[in-house]
């Protein structure tokens, strides 16, 4: 009896309140990707890739662009253009152009995390060129540009060198002064969209770019798992020291050897050696699987693998050092040396500018250890 009475009260309550705002899926224009182009007068060109359903219209993808001063203003303007209300909850990608950084208009992106509709796994990327162009270009082989960009970024961040840059990571790195942002950068090339490199930031400014290889180093030093196909070219003249030269089976006259290996596992450790003069030691340990050597190399001979290891270790150490020097030169501590320093030296109270001044003057020594686990299916 009580149960019945209870249910009836419940039903009455529901009927009384049955006017909640519904978000019925097909009556929404679902925002998948949003792009911001900054203009010189401090306004935005906001471009959105949407999914929406319209009966009897096959194509459910749509891209719209509006001019607006704020992102909420853009939302209002888009609503005026679209058949259904715009819905933020499925947003996957935020694209920014370089001008946003130049004109210091990044706060608009920060505001997004106030809205509970946004997830924190939204990815942020920079577009080399105009975002509007990237999103609105009439591609022949892409149905929804937002979905395409999302899956492209997703697998590259998960399995490749692309640095993980979610909205959470973005606000996190912007909030603390001891770490800078490194944002993947993409570009439209004709019909295709490609990940080009990593933009290195100092504060809110893009100060440099990193190559995919450096992106790999960056991720490893941060302790994120990456598998990477590493390509390196070794000069034959540089092979003598390691003793690699004697294992090359035949000489075909070229003066360099190309080596490609697959990183199975890599682990980066950062050590603070001297807190007074700020000296760091970076050690990368890479387990690899040799995939390709452009010349025949006699692995079966004793010492051959050792020689290759020595040689590669030297090469990679040089590459790493190059990257570390570059970071200091452009003053972009995207690895988080400052965070490491702060965590190890109590009561530093690293102020914003203090670490940024100190970082270029610090000295960082990189070293790469290598283990060749396999040499593929042939020796």
């Amino acid at each position, binding site marked *: 009896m009580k149960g019945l009475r209870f249910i009836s*009260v419940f039903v009455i309550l529901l009927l009384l309140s049955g006017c909640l705002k519904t978000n019925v899926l097909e009556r929404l224009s679902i925002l998948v990707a949003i792009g911001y182009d900054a203009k010189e007068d401090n306004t935005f060109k906001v471009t959105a890739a949407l999914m929406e359903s319209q009966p009897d219209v096959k194509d459910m993808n749509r891209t719209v662009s509006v001019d607006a001063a704020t992102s909420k203003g853009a939302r209002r303007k888009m609503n005026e253009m679209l058949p259904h209300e715009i819905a933020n909850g499925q947003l996957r990608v935020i694209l920014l152009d370089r001008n946003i950084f130049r004109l210091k208009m990044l706060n608009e992106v920060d505001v997004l995390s106030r809205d509970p509709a946004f997830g924190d*796994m939204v990815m942020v990327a920079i577009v080399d060129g105009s975002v509007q162009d990237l999103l609105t270009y009439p591609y022949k082989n892409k149905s929804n540009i937002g979905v395409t960009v999302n899956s492209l970024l997703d697998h590259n961040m998960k399995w490749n060198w692309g640095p993980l840059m979610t909205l959470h990571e973005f606000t996190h790195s912007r909030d603390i002064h001891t770490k800078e942002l490194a944002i993947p950068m993409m570009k439209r090339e004709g019909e295709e969209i490609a990940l080009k490199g990593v933009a290195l930031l100092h504060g809110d400014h893009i100060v440099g770019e990193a190559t995919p290889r450096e992106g790999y180093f960056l991720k490893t030093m941060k302790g994120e798992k990456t598998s990477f196909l590493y390509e390196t070219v070794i000069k034959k003249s540089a092979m003598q020291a390691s003793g690699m030269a004697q294992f090359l089976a035949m000489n075909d006259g070229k003066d360099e050897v190309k080596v490609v290996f697959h990183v199975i596992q890599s682990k980066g450790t950062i050590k603070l050696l001297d807190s007074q003069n700020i000296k760091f030691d970076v050690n990368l340990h890479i387990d690899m699987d040799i995939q390709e050597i452009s010349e025949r190399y006699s692995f079966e001979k004793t010492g051959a693998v050792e020689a290759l290891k020595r040689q590669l270790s030297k090469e990679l150490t040089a590459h790493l050092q190059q990257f570390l020097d570059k970071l200091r030169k452009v003053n972009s501590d995207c690895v988080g040396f400052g965070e490491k320093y702060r965590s190890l030296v109590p009561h530093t109270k690293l102020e914003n500018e203090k670490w940024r001044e100190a970082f270029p003057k610090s000295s960082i020594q990189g070293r790469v250890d290598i283990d060749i686990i396999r040499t593929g299916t042939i020796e």
Partner: protein
Amino acid sequence: MDIRYTPRKNFQFHAFLLFFVICNVQIGVGVFSYERYIYQVSGHDAWISVVLAGLITHLTVWLIVRMLERYGSTDLYGIHYDVFGKLAGTLLNCLYMLYYLCVTAIMMRNYVEVIQVWIFPDLPAWLVIVLLSLLTIYAGYGGIRVIIGMCVLGFIVILFTAFLFYSPLKYAIWTQLLPVMETDAWHVMNGAVRMGFSLSGFELILLLYPFIRNKERTMLHTQLGVACSNVIYLVTMIISIVYFSPSQLLRSIWPSINMLKIIKYPYLERLEFIVVSVWMLVALTGLLLNTWAITRGFKRMWNWNQKTMLVIVSIITVALSLSFEAHSQIAQMNKWIGKWNVALSFVYPMLLSCIVAIVFAFRRRKASSKGEGSR
């Protein structure tokens, strides 16, 4: 009113169920938002505050259970009558009942606010509050066993939710915990005091004690329950320290829910929606236990019918929790209740147990001296 009280056998329950009760009463809607308040004072050493507060809770529980063991089978209301006499006892009992009333109202309001912010911005507050109090009445009519059954269910929900916090760990920056003890001891202590708001509620053992069948196991299971909720608080605290940057943590009102936003499964996303709604079961246990405590007071002191009182109490809490609307008001109320929390669940029970110890010692001496005198 009899000071000692033993309920009928079919109202009694086993001591190990206390574990679930204590966990549920300590972990409520507060677990979504407490990190920020602690972090405000203790910085990245907030976890030390949590540990410290947990240890103090263990101590308080120890004192409370020791005090109850002295009496054999009684509750807080009975002890008040015994120690302070009828008038003062009634007053103190009323104070506690009033306090539980406020706690119930603020719990309801807090949960409704979470729903309004995270899921339905346009959901009328009265609807959820009325629904919640309907559930409270329905379960409350079933008596203490149903209430404890809901606690078991709530514990399962808490457990599964706790597993969800594994996902944010992938984004953790562990160096953010370092260096340890950068904050000075005073601030860490201050954080521990703020933690009192979240950890309070365990003092309900003062009222549940007569209903326990095997009373000798009370201490063990209560301490285990406290330990469990301490661990959950500690883990969520540590995860939110390593996951958020300091200013992110200070800005977000519900850091625990924010952390869940990162979770993504191939078949389901945005689990915070599910967690917030399923948390209704956990919030409900808190409401149930608190309203039960109030109606129990009426029953004990004036022998009023618990069922009718439950309806009246529910109506009052609905009215009370509907009386504030804006976030700032609710925050103000939370702060105010927080102070009372520390006083009524930590300081006062400790004090009371000391008083009881003294009274008992005094009585014993009196009895023995009397015995000697007669001899």
